[in-house]
């Protein structure tokens, strides 16, 4: 049970809204640029750059820049590639979230959902909110930040007004355990019941020392977060009454914390690090690794593998950052 919940929490990845786009297509849309899946390493490669990668028990999901949101079965990828939506390359990037459902927006206003196995006859319009900022999936709900507040609606679609999860909360990242949602804001780390049945509360006050909270993760009743080069944790039940434990100190700012089972993962620059919990006494750098910069979900983990957007140096004539043309994977 715990294992499943942790895995789901890892998939509740936020989508930051880009600027406007208009066209929307589904499975029957114009074919996206070719994507090749291989049985080994790399898992998937493309003529387009990848923007993000996600994984669950069965499927691998990816988003290519200015193009398409797709997935395939991990066990047999190439014949099972599924396209949820394709946008015109001249338009804004798609924003997506992956949980028990897949979600996307093409116009920064309408969020649409489908089952991971495909949209069937029609995708569902979950919400239409001109003030939509970022959205997240968790279980059978879509969560999103609007003007001032955090809302949720069932993935099957909203009634007239959504449920209020938290007032005054517009998080960049939102994570979940069985009962509560957690996020970082200017005051620190806050939490509220996932159904908004109680007001939010401050778990960890942000020390006003110029440090920067970057990322949150949850595992085995502990809350983990990164501040600059450090990874800390506290027991969720008593975070506001205990001194956080320093778990690891990196050589570069730590971002993108993820927990799967007894392993904590994070990024330091373009390196994926991991350590075993609970002590995290020794961290390991995954090899080979060269995670592409930027992107919305630069790596993903499941029970057996780590997947990442592989950074490839551009032609010497192009003064730009490494391109992510492949999703690679390696055993954990």
């Amino acid at each position, binding site marked *: 049970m715990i294992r499943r919940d942790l895995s789901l929490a890892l998939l509740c990845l936020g989508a930051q809204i880009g600027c406007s786009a208009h066209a929307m297509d589904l499975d029957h849309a114009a074919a996206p640029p070719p994507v090749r899946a291989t049985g080994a390493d790399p898992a998937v490669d493309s003529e387009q750059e990848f923007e993000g990668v996600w994984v669950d028990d069965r499927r691998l999901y990816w988003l290519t820049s200015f193009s398409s949101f797709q997935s395939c079965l991990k066990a047999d990828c190439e014949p099972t590639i599924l396209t949820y939506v394709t946008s015109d390359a001249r338009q804004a990037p798609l924003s997506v979230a992956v949980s028990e459902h897949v979600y996307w927006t093409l116009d920064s*206003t309408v969020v649409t959902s489908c089952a991971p196995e495909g949209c069937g006859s029609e995708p569902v319009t979950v919400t*239409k*909110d*001109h*003030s939509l900022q970022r959205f997240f999936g968790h279980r059978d709900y879509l969560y999103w930040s*609007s*003007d*001032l*507040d955090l*809302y949720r609606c069932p993935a099957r679609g909203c009634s*007239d*007004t*959504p449920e*209020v999860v938290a*007032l*005054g909360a517009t998080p960049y990242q939102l994570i979940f355990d069985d009962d509560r949602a957690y996020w970082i804001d200017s005051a620190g780390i806050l939490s509220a019941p996932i159904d908004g049945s109680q007001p939010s509360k401050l778990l960890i006050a942000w020390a006003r020392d110029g440090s920067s909270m970057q990322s949150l993760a949850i595992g085995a009743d502990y809350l983990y977060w990164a501040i600059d080069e450090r990874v800390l944790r506290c027991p969720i039940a008593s975070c506001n009454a205990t001194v956080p434990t320093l778990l690891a100190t990196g050589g570069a700012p730590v971002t993108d914390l993820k927990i799967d089972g007894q392993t904590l993962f994070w990024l330091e620059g373009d390196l994926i690090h991991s350590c075993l919990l609970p002590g995290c006494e020794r961290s390991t750098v995954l090899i080979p690794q060269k995670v592409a910069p930027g992107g919305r979900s630069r790596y993903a983990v499941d029970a057996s593998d780590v997947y990442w957007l592989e950074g490839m140096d551009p032609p010497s004539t192009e003064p730009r950052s490494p391109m992510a043309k492949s999703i690679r994977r390696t055993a954990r």
Partner: protein
Amino acid sequence: MNIRGIAILLSLSAGVSACGAKVVGLDASMIEASDEPDVLGIVHEKIEKLVVDDQRLYWVGTQHVVPIGSHYDWWLHSCQKRACASTIVTYDAQGSTNDIVFAVLGDRIYWHGPNIGQLASCPIEGCGGSPETLVPWVRFRSAAFDDEYFYYAVSSGRLNRLSFSQPGSVQPLSPKVDFASVYIHGDYVYLLALDPKSLKYQGILSLVRTRKDGTSSIELISDEVRASFVHHEFDVTADQSSIYWSDNLLVGSINRCPLTGCSGAPEVVLAPVRVPQTLLIDGSRLYYAYETKSGQNAVSSCALAACEPSLPLIEQLDSSGALAFDEQYLYAATTQQDADFHTGQGTVVRLIRVPKPDALLP
């Protein structure tokens, strides 16, 4: 009820200030008669604000210039309620990216022509495209009129007023504060004080007031106004004892405080309401415009003592400001199109009137 003599704030959705001087033909927007019951006329412009007095219906219509963006053409019209399509008067027509404000005071209509910044006036019967210019140039974030003065809040500046009889002299009424949503009631100007530390156009804001003659300090009414100016209209109105406002969020509410201010949290009149916007008080009844879903606006009402919302009285409202009332009727502009996106020449909008709920009672 004679609405004509009451100061009316009519502020259209704000765009970023820019100078887009353009002359639009006075006859560019036409009105068609209709055989449909309760339809006064059909126009091909988005109706942003609607006002009625005893005899006439007044409105600002807009059409966005293709490609759709912040620039639009606007027209200031009126017509007689009894024969609208054959009595239309166009006071002004311009291209603009900025606020448009107008009010009907006595037998004249006053407006701010935002493209060249003039404060102008005409007799309500019209002036053949030659309005009187009261002030050749004035800029503001929000403004309102009373019988004698034009009150306006300058972005990151003061609240000022200009006398219609001596329009050359500006009277500052407040220290420099970033104000929005100027509303006149009794001897006071009510305003929203934007928080310079926040995102400015959304947040938890303060509703304040100051005397119209500037002889009082700024008094706090409530510091718990939760509003956004990014996508939706925010509105303030009042009755004899209370000031009301719309927390215009997706899960929004209508709230009130005594005119002198709340000692604690404001009283929630109605919640949740999806994006409540325009508020109109008619005696003991509140009319409010809100979203039924994105791009679909409606009007409901309730008795103010204990607000039990009615079923929608008007659906498919063209914009939240396209609502007014007189003794017998509610007036509105409705459209079958998505109210968020129909802005061009294909727009079809009906000017309608329906009996007020009280008028239906025996």
